[in-house]
């Protein structure tokens, strides 16, 4: 995908496929890890919550990227699987009679996270089953149906009523505990999200550079040709749905630690579309693109929020009738998101990852940039 600095050539496929191909890349990665670990101590409290929101979007959109970017199965109902994960984890933490030693060791929540991933994965496979027969627009319809059936109906009408708690489950402080640490502050939530993102991106990266990933890419590029060369397309499509659902479940289970409650309005159709928008803005079929897209969308929302709220705050003193700007802020956000998706698709269809790749290669090949163009 990307060019190496001039003068470096690999002798084997293993060397080409390794994570860190040159010492420079390794150094860059180590620097990035250090920077991410130090982040909460450098920036203010509101930016820590922005940072873990970015991580949550990365986790949630990871499955979307897998399905759309690597396997070519368009999904517009991913929030349903995130919701399944969130509810599964919350209910396991709240209602399962955990043995004392597990709770003391802080294992209840981690176990529930893994179970949430598996349950969400199976739920996703259930709605992936039609992909054996249909594709394109019809598959979009079934994934949308997954959204409509799961969130507004099953979860809102039935699951939320379990235990008679009304509309949402709240998680009392102290229930979410990972090992010896109780997840009770934004900083701890951020570190938890960082660990989960690192693990999931690692898993995803390894999957897409192995046999499974090559099979997915073959299906994406042409499923009939893939079948002809011996890829079991139904099995691999369902595997893609399972893994995507698994990541979604983990994302949902993570986010309850940040919110300390679960309610259906965090899993509306808007979010399904938001995550698809993130991968389109970032770049389809690229893990970096997923990260760029999440950062872009969350930062745009945050800056818009600061802009609109700040503007209306100062304007309100002179023009009190402008108070509607704050109450209707969420609609500005939605409109801005819609417009940015449209403009990215029209003017930058390859996404931010492609721009990043161009800039990086410009520096990699400098001062002989012309060598990289066609070759």
């Amino acid at each position: 995908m990307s060019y190496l600095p001039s003068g470096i050539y690999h002798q084997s496929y293993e060397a080409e496929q390794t994570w860190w191909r040159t010492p420079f890349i390794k150094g860059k990665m180590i620097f990035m890890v250090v920077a991410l670990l130090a982040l909460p101590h450098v920036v203010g409290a509101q930016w820590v919550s922005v940072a873990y929101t970015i991580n949550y979007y990365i986790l949630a959109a990871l499955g979307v990227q897998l399905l759309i970017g690597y396997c070519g199965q368009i999904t517009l109902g991913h929030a349903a699987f995130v919701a399944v994960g969130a509810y599964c984890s919350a209910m396991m933490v709240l209602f399962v009679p955990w043995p004392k030693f597990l709770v003391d060791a802080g294992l209840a929540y981690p176990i529930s996270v893994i179970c949430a991933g598996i349950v969400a994965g199976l739920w996703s496979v259930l709605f992936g089953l039609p992909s054996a027969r249909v594709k394109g627009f019809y598959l979009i319809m079934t994934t949308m149906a997954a959204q409509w059936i799961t969130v507004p109906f099953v979860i809102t009408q039935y699951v939320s009523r379990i235990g008679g708690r009304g509309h949402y489950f709240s998680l009392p402080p102290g229930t979410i505990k990972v090992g010896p640490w109780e997840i009770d502050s934004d900083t701890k939530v951020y570190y938890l999200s960082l660990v989960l993102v690192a693990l999931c991106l690692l898993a995803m990266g390894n999957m897409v550079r192995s046999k499974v990933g090559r099979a997915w890419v073959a299906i994406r590029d042409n499923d009939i040709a893939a079948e002809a060369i011996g890829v079991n397309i139904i099995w691999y499509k369902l595997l893609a749905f399972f893994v995507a659902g698994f990541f979604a479940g983990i994302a949902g289970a993570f986010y309850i630690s940040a919110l300390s409650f679960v309610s259906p309005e965090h899993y509306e159709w808007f979010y399904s579309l938001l995550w698809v928008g993130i991968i389109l803005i970032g770049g389809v079929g690229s893990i970096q693109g997923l990260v760029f897209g999440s950062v872009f969308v969350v930062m745009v929302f945050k800056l818009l929020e600061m802009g609109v709220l700040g503007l209306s705050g100062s304007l309100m003193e002179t023009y009190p009738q402008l108070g509607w700007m704050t109450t209707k802020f969420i609609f500005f956000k939605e409109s801005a998101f819609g417009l940015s998706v449209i403009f990215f698709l029209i003017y930058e269809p390859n996404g931010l990852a492609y721009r990043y790749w161009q800039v990086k290669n410009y520096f990699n090949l400098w001062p002989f940039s012309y060598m990289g163009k066609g070759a």
Partner: protein
Amino acid sequence: MEMFLQLFTTGVMLGSIYALVALGWVLIYKCSGVLNLAMGELTLIGGYVCLSLYQSFVGHGLPVHYAFILALIGTIITGLLLGLVTERLFLRKMIGEPILAVIMVTVGLSFFFKGMVFIVWDTDTQVFLPTVFPIDPIVVWGVAVGQVYLWSFVAAISLMIIFVSFFKYTRWGLSMQACADDEMAALSLGVSAKFVYALAWGIAFMAAGVGGTLLGNINGLNYSVSMLGLLVLPVVVFGGLNSIPGAIVGGITIGLLQNLSGGYLDQYFPGGIKEVAPFVFMVIFLLFKPFGLWGWERIERV
């Protein structure tokens, strides 16, 4: 039995509105190949435009019925203009792009429209006041039918007849048919594809606007109208994506199904079974007949 007849007639009449909106959807797909997910927002915009026009006309002292008819005509004209502008600004650049990109442009449009509608008209439920249609139902052979439903049915059916005869007997309609059938051949015979796309979007906006107005008259206008507008998706999947008769039959079937499931299944599955039933039906139907009733089966070659 009486309950069945009741649900049946109301379902058919509600379904005719869905059929009208689905007609616009199918038209866009047939002519330009765009799968439009913004249909719900188009119905929403139409409903609100008509409501504001109606209120301002009534405010100026026009009689209720004239005001409503004028507002409806105003909605149709606004819809046509909006459709032309939307097509020119956003969709024309997307011709020939991959399916996901085109779909996501319409999704982006739906976010944009939704945000704008709520900024302009707020989120509270608004109703047509004074009510356009008399509230007391008409009783035919023991079946009571609300006048709103009856008039919506009449309006939807007559608009559909106008549209279908437009395709069949006018020059523009014929050029749209030609473009849908074989774009290359149509282009070589001097049909302007740009004009056809613009016209398709204009007609879809008009149909959705009228549909939104009628739905708003039944239940009041709020965000749920756009959910009802999204029901065109099960409708077109059922009828086949590129079949106009399929859209009409599918619309009526889905309306019927929705009403019957609301009437009979709600006691077993309390909650929103009425909203979910069309989607469940759609998934099951897709497993058996992926191309709908009269859709073209696509044969792929490697």
